[in-house]
């Protein structure tokens, strides 16, 4: 059904291709950048991706102002401040984020400080606090899951004050998302699977929640279909460039979808479990997705049923009676999780992921206070959350 009102915004230029990275110098030039700073992490550098990146500059004449390759998996305001100092020292004028969610969010944080000429990130935390157009930011994802290359949000921890600072602003949207399969070829199978299920959750939740709209639906459906067709090969044969590129595209499409329609209980539970028990986000998404859908089933049976088409293909969709499509959708996701578990041992329940039962209550409390829950189609209280967590425990 067409919503009576909605907004959809995605100005990020997408550049996708087997050698997309080679276009980076000229794209930076178009953005007016002369001395970009590269933000990345040790894993990316260790996999030789920084070298591929530097090689792409070749004889372009563009100078890399600085490279920071030590962003930790859970980035913090301290790291952001450290990078900001290097940015200023080296008189850089733009940012290139080469990495996964943590690297991208860190670069977004650096961009806030260098644009606002400030050293206090906390001042800018919250929704639509930022008011200035930012420095050029190009994002080159090295995982296919977070969708951060096309989202308006960033989350950065403030370790001293022990809080997670959320940032939400259209100014945080990168200028360019550059999808080059060479950047994800070395991603290990389990990480590939977890990040892919993160993307799957973005797309699925964006399609069923309250803020869904025709534009986000289109991106979500296309993303799910592309994930379905490529996820198992991406995990079992990571060297397949076409499949990697498809997964990168799917992740970006899922990112565009949820950035405009938001997510739901699966993310609320995932954020809570991640915060309390440090389960990697993609792993949590994989665990909670079918349970979240089952929980939402009474409120959006029809929408979940429609997802059978991208998730299982036309033949299965056509054969499955309408009244049973929603169950079949959930069933397909259950089976996909089992397949991923067979392929790379991706945990299917909280126990396998190392969560102890005594934490469930705490996770439930945190989940119902997570902002992701706002747009979920069915309200969830602490008892509901605990019931889902118990189902997902083992």
């Amino acid at each position, binding site marked *: 059904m067409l919503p009576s009102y909605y907004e959809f915004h995605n100005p990020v230029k997408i550049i996708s291709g087997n050698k997309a990275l080679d276009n980076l110098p000229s794209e930076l030039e178009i953005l007016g950048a002369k001395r970009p700073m590269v933000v990345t992490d040790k894993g990316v550098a260790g996999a030789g991706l920084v070298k591929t990146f530097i090689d792409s500059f070749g004889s372009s004449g563009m100078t890399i102002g600085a490279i920071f390759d030590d962003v930790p998996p859970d980035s913090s305001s301290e790291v952001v401040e450290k990078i900001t100092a290097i940015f200023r020292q080296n008189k850089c004028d733009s940012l290139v984020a080469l990495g996964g969610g943590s690297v991208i969010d860190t670069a977004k944080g650096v961009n806030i400080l260098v644009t606002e000429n400030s050293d206090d990130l906390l001042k800018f935390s919250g929704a639509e606090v930022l008011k200035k157009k930012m420095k050029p930011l190009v994002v080159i994802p090295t995982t296919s899951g977070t969708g951060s290359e096309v989202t308006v949000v960033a989350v950065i921890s403030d370790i001293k004050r022990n809080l997670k600072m959320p940032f939400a602003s259209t100014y945080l949207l990168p200028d360019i998302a550059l999808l080059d399969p060479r950047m994800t070829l070395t991603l290990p199978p389990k990480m590939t699977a977890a990040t892919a299920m993160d993307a799957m959750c973005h797309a699925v939740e964006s399609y069923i929640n309250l803020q869904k709209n025709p534009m986000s639906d289109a991106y979500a459906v296309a993303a799910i279909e592309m994930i379905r067709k490529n996820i*198992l090969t991406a995990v079992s044969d990571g060297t397949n460039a076409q499949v990697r590129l498809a997964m990168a595209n799917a992740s970006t499409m899922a990112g565009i979808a949820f950035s405009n329609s938001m997510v739901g209980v699966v993310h609320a539970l995932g954020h809570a479990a991640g915060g309390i028990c440090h389960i990697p986000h993609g792993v949590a998404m994989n665990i909670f997705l079918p349970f979240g859908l089952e929980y939402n089933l*009474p409120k959006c*049976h029809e929408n979940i049923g429609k997802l059978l088409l991208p998730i299982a293909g036309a033949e*299965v969709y056509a*054969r499955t009676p309408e009244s*049973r499509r929603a169950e*079949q959708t959930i*069933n397909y996701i259950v089976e996909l999780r*089992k*397949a991923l578990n067979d392929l790379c041992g991706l945990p299917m329940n909280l126990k396998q992921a190392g969560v102890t039962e005594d934490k469930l209550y705490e996770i439930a409390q945190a989940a119902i206070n997570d902002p992701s829950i706002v747009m979920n189609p069915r309200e969830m209280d602490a008892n509901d959350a605990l019931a889902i967590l118990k189902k997902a425990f083992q």
Partner: protein
Amino acid sequence: MEEIKGFSNKILEINLTDKSWSVSEASNEDRRMFLGGKGLGMKLLYDRLKPGVDPLGEENILIIMPGVVTGTGAPCSGRFEAISKSPLTGIIATASCGGPFGIQLKTAGYGGLVIRGKSKDKCVVWFDHNTVEFRDATDLWGLDTVETQERVLSSSKTESKKEAILAIGPAGENLVRFANISSGHRFLGRGGLGAVMGSKNLKAVVAKGAHYKIVPAEPEKFQKVKKKATQFIKNDAVTISMGKFGTATNVKFVNKGKMLPVWNYSFGDHEHAFRISGEMIKEKHDTKVHTCKPCSIMCGHKGTFNGKEAPVPEYETLTLLGSNLGVFDTDAISRFNDICNKAGMDTISAGGTLGWVMEAVEKGLISPDLFVCSTKSKQDELSAKKESSDDVDKTQSGTPRKYSLMFGSIDGIEDALESIAKGEGFGKEMGLGSRALSHKYGGKGFAIQVKGLEMAGYDPRGSYGLGLAYSVANRGACHLSASLMAFEVFLGLLKPDTARSKPQFVKFVEDLTCGVNALQTCHFTMYAYTLEPMLTKYTPKFILKNLMLWLPELALALFDFSIYPSLFSSITGIKMSSKEFLKAGERIHVLERYMNTREGIRSRDDALPDRMVMETIVRDKKKRVVPLKEMLVKYYKLRGYNNDGVPVPKLLERLKIPSQPCCSS
């Protein structure tokens, strides 16, 4: 210990009606003509069984036959055969098993066991070399196959525990038309022979052997042949792969060849097929060997499923109770397998029937409410659940959402299997098989069976030769009558999507297989024994392929299967050439066909399901359907059948098959 040179012609004849027994003698001429195992058993049945009898009636006869090689120590010689009239198909059923009963039967001094009549009370038959006892089985009735065997063995009076058992589970007792018979952890699987035992009130048969030692008539020659045979098995790539990964090694070939049954044979492949492959199962379930005894191929395995040790489901189980239902969860399939094994039920027919049921529900031919948790305890559980979650239990459109059987979902399958075994609710109807269900409710076109027997786990649209073989196989849609998929798909020697040369190969493989089943050695020895000899091994593959396609008669001459007649000759002392061996195989096959025609089988019954001849596999770019008609005409001609598929008198005469049985009954 006394010795038996090669074989015994003594046949133990048991009549359950009056609890009597006698010993008859098979003639040497029958032994030479029909070899042993399935062949001699077929002749014994021909001589004793009147056409038209009720398979579940007193007049039906169950024959158990050890093989010629049984007990000799030849490679893969732990098998035996059962022959009867099938309650599932109404025609002759044969089944082979690698359990311990065969060796005990033979070393008790018998070359065959004939069971006729019907016991008034539930009974167990015990026998050794000179006695037969009929014991009460009231306490055993209702026990599963494992409990039955354990209970019977524990009641053995001997310390040596030399007994081996044939036992049925609840499925046999409840006359499930595809109930099987267990022996150890192996089964006489197909055709519902467990129901034949059940109909006779016969819970188990116990053989105490080890009275005789089986020695070959020509020991030196036997040792030489045995050595060669063992070497062939050790060298053959297919048997090596089976030893490593079990029969599930076939999954990858079948999925690639687009002949994996998925969603009741609608799809020929699936992206999750790797999950049921032998390679994945080995890695995930830490498998070990768990075979028939003795065995040199070692395709049987066990591993850890659901946290405990269990047999690795065979390829057919993985496909029929797995991919065919859209299930690729090996732990779940192991649970289904366990239910079937304990209940004593054929996993192929059970899976084929559930495949039909799922599609019938999908098409609205039957209501899902018919089979939701038919057992009482499950019903109570379900209604309790429903009361507590009524708000969640409705769809937006108000349709009840609770379902039990749906392609792709494991929900409800265990309940359905249990209800079949117990004969409860709709389970009783499912226990009649897919043909009977489709006759009652419609949906004949997607009842994937031939002559009432559900099809094995290979879609013939990916292997036309197998399509012909399924249609003409004597016991119904059997993949072991002529396993052409081996040539067409596994080995890549014969172009799969053409009718050319298929009738010749089907006939040849059928005859050879009958010979193999008469020796009662393992079917899988056919890979090693026919492909390892020099001519086939060293002929360049492209030449062999072209010869097989364009000059099949010449190609067939290259296949050296002399190991089989050599085994027969060295064990029995009866001289036999390859040509004579193949002719004996032909004789056995044609006799079975002839017996089936006496039950009414004609050309119209040699039909594949509509799905195989009229519908293409989903997403199959080649749009293949089996060109059955043209292959069938040629096949009948080659066989010497008339246009209606009946063996003509001239053929029977040439094969020395008497058109009327002698009256041993």
